[in-house]
């Protein structure tokens, strides 16, 4: 598994070496790209502030934990743990919300706890489904049919159900 620690450095080296070989002005192009990244990040900041506060309310009051415990008996049947429920609920709706919930889960329970790992897998293998569908269909003059929601949410549900299984399988 430690091999994957090499992934990020390897990707960086491959990109830079290929860039150098192909005669790309690395510093200039990197700067332009990083600027775009910074602009996107800055656009994200105000909403993130608000969402983290809201999530902090729900999370630190213990309400989300209680919700997880409430659903625990049902979920443990499927091998899931209640701690990822808040993430599963927020994930399809809001990207910044999911980010806030995810970072509080791995912050409070530890990134390498079972819940932390399940949350990691869930976070990485699902998307802000409703947002994506809305934005993508907004580019067309069509309206998303029911089938689009059914199929995408099926994939999300599968992602949630399999997340615990995946964690057991890999660790």
């Amino acid at each position, binding site marked *: 598994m430690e091999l994957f620690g090499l992934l990020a450095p390897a990707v960086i080296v491959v990109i830079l070496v290929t860039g150098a070989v192909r005669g790309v002005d690395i510093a200039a192009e990197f700067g332009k790209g990083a600027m775009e990244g910074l602009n996107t990040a800055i656009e994200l900041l105000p909403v993130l502030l608000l969402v983290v506060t809201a999530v902090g309310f729900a999370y630190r*009051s213990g309400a989300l934990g209680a919700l997880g415990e409430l659903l625990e008996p049902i979920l443990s049947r499927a091998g899931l743990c209640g701690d990822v429920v808040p993430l599963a609920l927020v994930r399809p709706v809001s990207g910044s919300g999911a980010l806030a919930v995810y*970072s509080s889960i791995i912050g409070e329970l*530890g990134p390498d706890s079972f819940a932390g*790992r399940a949350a990691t897998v869930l976070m*990485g*293998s699902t998307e802000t489904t409703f947002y994506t569908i809305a934005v993508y269909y907004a580019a067309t003059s069509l309206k998303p049919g029911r089938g689009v929601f059914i199929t995408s949410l099926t994939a999300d549900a599968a*992602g949630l159900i399999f997340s615990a299984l995946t964690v057991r399988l890999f660790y």
Partner: protein
Amino acid sequence: MNILLVTLCAIGLVYSLAAGDVSSLSLAAADSAENALKLWLTVAAAMMLWSGLMRVAEKAGIVDRLCQTVRPLMRLLLRDLPPESPAMKAAAMNFTSNLLGLGNAALPFGLRAMKELETARCSQRTMAAFILLNTASVQLVPMNIITLRAAAGSPTPSDCVLPILFNSLLSLTCGLLAVCAVYSPALSPGKGGKIRNKKPREERAWNYSGS
């Protein structure tokens, strides 16, 4: 989004009142902004680094190469598109960007692909499959998550790469099966000939609201 925000705050307030513990809530109100800024710093730094690197990768032709590699897969999933159509190209670029964990770069390609799909008058099934490709979030390099895990103190932050990939492929497969089931009468591909009749009503979902 409004509903989500209000719900989160309201259940937090109601629950802590009911539990008789308001101190944690006032603490949350006080230091949440600072937490948000710390979180943002982590994410923003990763976003800058990887957006910069990906621009270099694009200029070096690496992204184009990856696009070529994913073409066969795209052809399989979006089967009523001509292989060299602009829709296919945009879809491939979109998928490649997602694969590299670049949601921001993926979006413009995704929107272009949707426009082209509409112009090409492709089936609902193809559109649903394309949306699914985006929402299933298949990633080779989930850099944001690795960064967040490292920031939370994990000694092995990148051991999540394989599980994440595995899980998203699994959920993508389930989604594709759902696509086959929902849109089966129209254009069912050779998925074991498992055609379940679900009344061919989906074609009506087209909505030509003149714009």
